[in-house]
């Protein structure tokens, strides 16, 4: 038995009340959010940041289920979507909306998202795991399908749209500008993230973890696993609904797309990519995914293929997601051995990256060769223009892919060894 153990990551969450160390990440994040628009001033950048912030709230809400409560949902988009639809209807309710300050609007989304979660949760949280997943899928599909039937509420195929500027001006701000909307969203982002974080520190939030780990044992501690799940589910419904409200404010339109399986699946992907094991995982996931989506989709038609491959690789090799990978480096950091990893990392990651880029290049050429219009054999890849009839690009990308893979593989044992070394505490263990 080793007597000394380093303090794990969760230690400052578990102990004490409000401390400076606990507050610091929040203050830094807020400062960061406030400064961002001064660094990236273009309208398109602000659009991306708005989307990112909404996705963060949605992903955090999703992780209340998956990460904190062990409930895998394939229908979480429904709660965000319904919240959003309600908010658009409020926007269109002339007499009422003109007396309502816009920043309050997401509350309506939240309440209706919560209301729907109350109804669905009453029967879906009886069980976790596979059964819960299937019920969430079925209910999600049911409501998405209803969108073409209940036209009054969902607006059929065109969806419903509104105008956020009809609301009561706040300090003279009418929210005509994207930047004004940005600060509104950031306000809600901080509020919701704090709310969800604090929820996880409450008795029911703690028991959600316990029920996730071992529902049966939790029952023998006096808690009904079902009701613990139910409370998490309802809370997640509220935050998803308020994210929907922000979506309504930002885009001023909601359609069937906001409810369907594709959207629900995307949020699972975002959350898992970021990492379900840590509170900040979904935040990273939302940022990375939004960037990938906007940057990659400009570059290539095949971006969804790459994201899909990345997702499957994450599930198979890094089930902790990006947050898990980051937190893996805390023990070596604490031991002061992080520098041992630098050289092996370069030796593996550089050829690995070359391999991935070259493989993508090869796939792009193949795609072009297969699907381009007849006679259109010119293509541009990595700033080089060539014809796909020329065998050279095929050979170069193929060769680099194989070579990079081979080199990365060759150095992998070295990295594994360095990793082991960096995690061994020579002072404590014999």
């Amino acid at each position, binding site marked *: 038995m080793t007597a000394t153990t380093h303090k794990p990551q969760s230690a400052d969450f578990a102990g004490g009340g409000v401390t400076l160390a606990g507050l610091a990440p929040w203050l830094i994040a807020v400062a960061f959010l406030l400064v961002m628009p001064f660094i990236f001033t273009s309208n398109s950048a602000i659009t991306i940041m708005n989307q990112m912030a909404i996705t963060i709230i949605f992903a955090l809400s999703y992780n209340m289920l998956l990460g904190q409560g062990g409930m895998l949902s394939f229908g979480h988009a429904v709660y965000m979507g319904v919240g959003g639809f309600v908010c658009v209807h409020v926007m269109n309710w002339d007499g009422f909306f003109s007396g309502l300050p816009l920043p309050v609007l997401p509350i309506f989304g939240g309440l209706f998202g919560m209301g729907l979660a109350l109804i669905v949760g009453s*029967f879906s949280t009886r069980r976790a795991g596979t059964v819960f997943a299937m019920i969430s899928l079925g209910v999600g599909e*049911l409501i998405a399908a209803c969108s073409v039937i209940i036209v009054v509420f969902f607006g059929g195929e065109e969806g419903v749209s509104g105008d956020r500027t009809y609301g009561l001006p706040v300090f003279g701000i009418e929210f005509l500008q994207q930047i004004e909307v940005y600060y509104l969203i950031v306000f809600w982002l901080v509020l919701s993230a704090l709310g969800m974080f604090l929820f996880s520190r409450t008795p029911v939030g703690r028991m959600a973890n316990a029920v996730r780990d071992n529902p049966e044992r939790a029952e023998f501690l006096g808690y009904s696993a079902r009701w613990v799940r139910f409370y998490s589910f309802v809370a997640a419904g509220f935050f998803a609904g308020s994210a929907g409200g922000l979506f309504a404010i930002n885009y001023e339109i909601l359609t069937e797309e906001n409810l369907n399986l594709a959207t629900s699946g995307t949020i699972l*992907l975002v959350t898992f990519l970021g990492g379900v094991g840590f509170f900040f995982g979904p935040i990273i996931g939302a940022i990375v995914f939004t960037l990938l989506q906007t940057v990659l989709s400009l570059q290539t038609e095949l971006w969804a293929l790459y994201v899909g491959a990345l997702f499957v690789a994450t599930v198979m090799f890094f089930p902790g997601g990006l947050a898990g990978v980051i937190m893996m480096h805390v023990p070596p950091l604490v031991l002061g051995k992080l520098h041992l990893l630098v050289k092996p990392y370069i030796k593996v990651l550089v050829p690995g990256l070359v391999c991935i880029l070259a493989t993508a290049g090869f796939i792009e050429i193949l795609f072009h060769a297969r699907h381009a219009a007849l006679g259109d054999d010119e293509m541009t890849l990595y700033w080089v223009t060539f014809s796909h009839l020329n065998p050279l690009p095929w050979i170069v990308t193929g060769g680099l892919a194989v070579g990079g893979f081979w080199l990365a593989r060759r150095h992998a044992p070295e990295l594994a060894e360095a990793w082991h070394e960096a995690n061994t505490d020579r002072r404590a263990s014999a």
Partner: protein
Amino acid sequence: MDLVLVNLIDGLVTGLLLFMLSAGLTLIFSMMGVLNFAHASFYMLGAYFAYQISVYLGFWMGLLVAPLIVGALGAGVERYGLRRVHQYGHVPELIFTFGLALLIEEVVQFIWGKDQIPYEIPGILEGAAFAIAGNTIPLYKVFMIFLSLAIFGGLLFVLTKTRVGMIIQAALSYPRTVEALGHNVPLVFMGVFGVGTALAGVAGVIAGPVLSTFPGMAVVLGSIVFVTIVIGGLGSLGGALVASLIIGWMTTFAKAYDMRMEDLLTWMGLTKPEPIWDSAWQDLWTLTSPQVADILPYLLMVLILIFRPYGLFGKRDV
């Protein structure tokens, strides 16, 4: 009355098709505890492979070979993918198969493009088999029914009369005991996964020409298949059969008979608000049964879950 018969046949075709998918899904689930979210993707792959083969070798070679390729692919996924994820638990396994479904759809689009492909019924099976009171029953439907029944017969034989079948059956009721069988279990898992996905492949091969072959076909059918096995009770083959047939007939009849909510509401003594397009209840009044046919399975699922949480025939804890 004759129309009823025609619809019974149509619903049977849909039901058997659903069962071909849900049977494989149930087998895999009962054995390994994994719900294969990518199951419908293998069904799609079956259709695409069969199309590609039929271009060169004709429909019948496609029917024969495509399911084998799909099954081999499925076995490979189990061996090199799922088995790796298994250590993390069932939920990550489900997430893995979900990711796989996304990936397969993208790969299919990559290879065959986003549009529907011209995968068609072979010439010999075109035309009508017989007619009932002026409604012709296409020969291809009869072929689908007999092929499905033949496959189920074969499956039943394997399950009840062979040694491998005994092991699988034992695993259905006593998964723990089969775990204790030792070294051959991973192989049985791989085999069951392969056979299950191959069944989905067969369904794809025969459904592709009638339900059209396009990259979204997996999503269209996928959710319904999952709903089917939830209604039937997770892990129950009999339940899957009953639920498949119920859903097949329910949707067919809802589509065939144009029942209107208006009639029902009037019969209940309500008066239709005029003008209807101004009323908040317009969607309720103008509702027709073909409109709701596709959501009936989901409604049924919600009702079943409220009144029978384990499904129609389910008993085992998941």
